[in-house]
């Protein structure tokens, strides 16, 4: 029994951290936040050269052929750095969808481009507020043409390839769409976290290809996998937020002592640490289940997703509060974390959605 990452995996993680420290300090996130650029293109290129986008893509398709534990470590570091790149939707969802449901031709057509970063992928499910599950969507496919409007689509304005959830003759499925093709109209939307862009995409008879076997159940499994990896991204953000807060409260003096010496702050820092540790343990367990295609994955994915989302949000709320006035200024970095935690919680279904799923799955597990 060994419930920890291997030394090789930790080494890979350190490499990723060093690279991001050099190429994606928080200033990079802020730069995207404040500019009109949708994402940090050079960082995206660099990441591809590090093999991150293609981490789990087989070498035959130009990937690095790593495992999911390695990808989890990369996701964690991307989260720690608040890297302003369209990573999750492209790597955790679009790439995964192709790997699991793509035909040889589809893989050959897209995986190499996704691996080398020349194409960005995304995932389009929601069409209106409050939509988490694929079941209730309205977009339809007929004779290989997709129609319907997706709102919002993360990175939808910069992606080349969209994996779109739609209905075809009454059944839910996933479809590949080249967003530069005809019948696709995209509009960039103002984002709550402008370091990650959002768009509305209207499909009007856009050409699409079905992903084989990607039925409702398969979509759920796909979201489970993405949820685990996203949990690591959230965990990274929470860890970084807590570290920055810790450093601040130790150096900030009031009433003649560091504010970190006041129990009101100390004890809430301890609670945050617990919250994050629990999220870490749940995420590790889920990563193990993911890497081993274990039957526990559906439950583990819920645990990881819920714990990481809530730990990240709570940490960012306290981060601003403990910084006091300066924490509320644009100039300080607290709001970068405050925004990102909400952005990631909104992807792939909200914690509320996953909580209900968890109970459903625990019941099934008990019954079995």
């Amino acid at each position: 029994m060994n419930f920890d990452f291997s030394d090789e995996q930790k080494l890979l993680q350190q490499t990723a951290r060093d690279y991001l420290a050099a190429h994606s300090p928080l200033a990079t996130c802020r730069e995207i936040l404040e500019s009109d650029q949708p994402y940090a293109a050079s960082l995206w290129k660099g990441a591809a050269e590090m093999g991150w986008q293609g981490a789990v893509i087989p070498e035959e398709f130009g990937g690095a052929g790593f495992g999911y534990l390695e990808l989890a470590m990369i996701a964690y570091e991307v989260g720690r750095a608040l890297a302003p790149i369209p990573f999750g939707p492209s790597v955790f969802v679009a790439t995964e969808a192709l790997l699991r449901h793509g035909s040889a031709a589809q893989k050959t057509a897209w995986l190499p481009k996704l691996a080398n970063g020349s194409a960005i992928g995304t995932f389009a499910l929601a069409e209106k507020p409050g939509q988490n599950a694929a079941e209730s969507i309205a977009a339809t496919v007929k004779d290989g043409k997709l129609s319907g409007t997706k709102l919002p689509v993360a990175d939808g304005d910069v992606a080349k390839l969209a994996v779109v959830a739609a209905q075809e003759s009454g059944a839910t499925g996933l479809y590949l769409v080249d967003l530069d093709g005809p019948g696709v109209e995209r509009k960039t939307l103002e984002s709550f976290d402008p370091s990650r862009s959002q768009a509305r995409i209207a499909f009007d008879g856009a050409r699409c290809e079905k992903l084989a076997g990607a039925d409702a159940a398969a979509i759920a499994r796909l979201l489970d996998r993405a949820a685990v990896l996203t949990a690591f991204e959230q965990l990274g953000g929470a860890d970084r937020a807590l570290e920055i807060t810790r450093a601040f409260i130790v150096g900030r003096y009031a009433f003649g002592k560091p504010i970190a010496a006041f129990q009101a702050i100390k004890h809430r820092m301890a609670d945050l640490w617990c919250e994050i540790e629990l999220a870490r343990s749940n995420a590790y367990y889920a990563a193990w289940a993911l890497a081993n295609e274990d039957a526990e994955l559906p439950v583990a994915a819920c645990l990881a997703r819920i714990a990481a989302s809530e730990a990240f949000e709570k940490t960012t709320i306290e981060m601003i509060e403990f910084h006091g006035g300066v924490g509320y200024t644009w100039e300080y970095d607290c709001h970068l974390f405050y925004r990102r935690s909400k952005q990631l919680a909104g992807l792939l279904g909200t914690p509320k959605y996953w909580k209900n799923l968890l109970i459903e799955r625990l019941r099934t597990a008990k019954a079995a």
Partner: protein
Amino acid sequence: MDFNDTADEAAFRAEARTWLAKNARPRTAMTPTISGEDLTLDVVKQSQAWQKKKAEAGWACITWPKEYGGRSATPIQNAIWGQEQSKFETPPDVFSIGIGMCGPTLLTHGTPEQKTRWIPKLLTGEEIWCQLFSEPSAGSDLAGLRSSAVKQGNDWIVNGQKIWTSGAQICEWGILVVRSDATVAKHAGLTFFVVNMHSPGIEIRPITQINRGQGFNEVFFSDVRIPDDQRISAVGNGWAVSITTLMNERMSIGSGMGVGAIEDLVGFVEKLEIDGEPAIEDRQVRERIAEYVVKARGLKYTSLRTLSALSQGKTPGPEASMSKLVGAVLQQHAASFAMELAGASSALLDDLAPERAAWQQRYLSLPGLRIAGGTDEVLRNIIAERVLGLPPDARADKGISFKDIPTGPPKS
């Protein structure tokens, strides 16, 4: 126990309503004023015009003494006036600091000459006021402020930096607390002044908030001269004067807060569907909102109890601290919850988001509310010590002169 107006109250309400009906348009939609709005000059003019109109009719600062232009109204009358005025469209208020904090402070601690000099133009809105208290290194620990005032002949020379000053650009006057003696204990070395914001040596820089608002400023003082007759109360008595301001600040920030926004949630979830089902039928949604509403109503009724106490001549307790402490966190949670219900759309700050992203906007403004005018932590201390009479924290800054108090990690 009676919520109905007495005959006098009813008469006063009618009088207020009549005047308002003649001078303002009835309010149509509730337009929540988000903290830290940018102030356009146009807004300022409208606000001044409305204040002038009220002043001429005797409806400005009605609780203030008649001699200074008020009508010596009772707290109840003031509440009634507030209720009635809120039913009409009125321009954004740029006088909340001046009327809410500066005025009361001057009325309490100013000399007759000082009151006659400043109160009337403050009341008519001709002169706008701001507050110069917090400093980068003195927030919760206000008495740890470092800006200095040195006596030179009949003037004081002020140097240092203030922060979190609302509307500094548009103000004529500011109330200022600075350190006049660093060799005595921290609270004993402060002195309180009124400073003209156009004085040479004052530089104002706006602060951008996380919600992109620019309601606050940094104000830099370099050898700013303040005549001694603009000193409020005795040299070294600045702390006592500041407390008056802060009590009034918490009351104005705290009062009757957030109730509206909370109950908006009911309407929000009546319209919203979650994965094809009406959100209002979801018991987790219902119970969570119910918990919020219970607190929000509790705050509302508490402010009515406070009013009753005032009307019975009791001095207001720390209920206002509670109102801000509970209300700000409550609204932040409610905004976060509303965002979660919106699902992926919560990632939008776009008009295409539910309620045109009003909840997202609130989520971005509320952290400021939890900090401004006393952080949650400061307010809990106030309640614990002043209401429950619990002992003070162990202090590392007691019984030593200000200059010897640690202000950062030991240099090693």
